[in-house]
């Protein structure tokens, strides 16, 4: 693959990493467990790659590997999102709303 593509991808990686740092830093302690669950779901993005491998069904090996990969990552994605959602649905606040867990205003 041409070095240009590699470098562009490094650009993307660097920017995404920086962005990640900025947004994650703002997540309050309160939500750290849901955050772990969510990122856990995201970490199964390899699903995309798995689909390609399995979809091409090139060799028996690749089919087997791809199949396992798709199953595994699907478990991770589906389970992860359901779990996170289940958790978050539990978070309630007492009236009147207190401000301490609000994000700070945009100024």
């Amino acid at each position: 693959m041409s070095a240009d593509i590699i470098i562009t991808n490094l650009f993307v990686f660097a920017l995404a990493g920086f962005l990640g740092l900025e947004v994650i830093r703002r997540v309050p302690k309160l939500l750290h467990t849901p955050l772990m669950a969510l990122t856990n779901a995201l970490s199964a993005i390899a699903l995309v790659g798995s689909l390609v491998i399995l979809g091409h069904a090139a060799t028996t090996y690749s089919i087997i590997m791809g199949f396992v990969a798709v199953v595994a990552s699907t478990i991770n994605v589906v389970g992860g999102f359901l779990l996170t959602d289940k958790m978050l649905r539990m978070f309630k606040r007492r009236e009147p709303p207190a401000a301490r867990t609000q994000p700070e205003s945009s100024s």
Partner: protein
Amino acid sequence: MRLHIIELVYLAAAMGFALSLKWMSSPPTARRGILAGEIGFVLAIGATLALPGFTNEGYIYIAVALLIGSAIGVPLGLLVPMTAMPQRIALSHSFGALAAALVGTAHYYLETTHLGKFELAVLGFEMLLGFLVFTGSLMAAGKLQELLPQRPIVYKGQNATNFAVLGAALVLIIVLVFQPGATWIVPIIAALGLAFGILLIVPIGGADMPTVIALLNSYAGLSAAALGLVLNNKLLIVAGALDGTSGLILSIIMCRAMNRSFRNVLFGAFGAVDETADGEAPTGAIRSASPDEAAEILKNSRLVVIVPGYGMAVAQAQHKVRELADALAKEGVEVRFAIHPVAGRMPGHMNVLLAEANVPYDQLYDMEDINPEFPQVDVVLVLGANDVVNPAARHNKGSPIYGMPILEVDKAQTVMVVKRSMRAGFAGIENELFYDPKTLMVFGDAKKVVGDLVNEVTGARDRVSL
């Protein structure tokens, strides 16, 4: 053309992921965050299925695999009790990592001839990481589920072994880079990765597992990003990068809260080993009380602070605790919850449990906010917490948790500790707090004890209201 539209959809998906993390920054928006993430995934999957080159049987396989995956994923997501959260997360990490590793491997065998040096290097790294996270996460899950011994397993020449394995793997990757055709190398790299994952976790104590999990999460992200580099798939790169940073930050936060040097955890065992050395054991008489005595004291006080810990999670006592808080409130007692950042087994573990029991989250106080107030507190009710209230962290230089910021409950007027025995907490060390003259031990399972307390308190109220 079609390819470009797919790429654009990937871009949308990537933005969805970024938004989902951004919206986690506050409870009101968090649900929306999930939605964004889910939309991201739907887009990603849809676009991928639209890629050219898929065979019909391929589509069939995919359909089956997706179904099976969902069939397992749904119960895993819905049925797992909140207390089993850490091992649950570790487990599903292992799945994601396995997928990443397999994709990398398959890609190698399919493309062997077309792979450039850079890709081979990244690919090798990716496989190593993937397999490592796979076994590592399984180990972590096992330890947390107590299928495996919690205590660190250490042996002579451990670091040597680990370094050897790691070194061998890296050497092989280099060889692979220069002999792309040497297909025999890949299985060995895989094996070494699997082995290293185990070796890495074996010597780490259960108490470090959550940190390790966050770290493995970040590794998983890295391997996804690496895969993206190889497949030139920017969506993988973005998701991987976001994931990697998030895991990294979480583990750093945890280390801070337990004041463990991040280096230690980063290199897993290498240094965590002495974690479990005991400080000199405190001695002396302990005062224990019965639930009804405890209830008496509680409802005659003005301000009560409840400090939940891992024990509450084990006992599933959160709902009873909520009842107790309400009952005391009815008695005119002010009740607050003090949450230590690493109470339980995950960051925010207690928050989730109490949220499950409908305790409004603005009733929970962070360590920094509540510590100054303990001197004004009449009674602190320590519910299955131990290490996070161990005063040794403040003054006993010998103690392994020395320096870890704790909830300074010993500054309060009275301390009640609810636990089943005098046994140690996760750090495996004695807790002098239990021998403090102002401390009352209330032995028993947290759920049971709190249940009794509720009855006493409410019962009492009924009599009064006659």
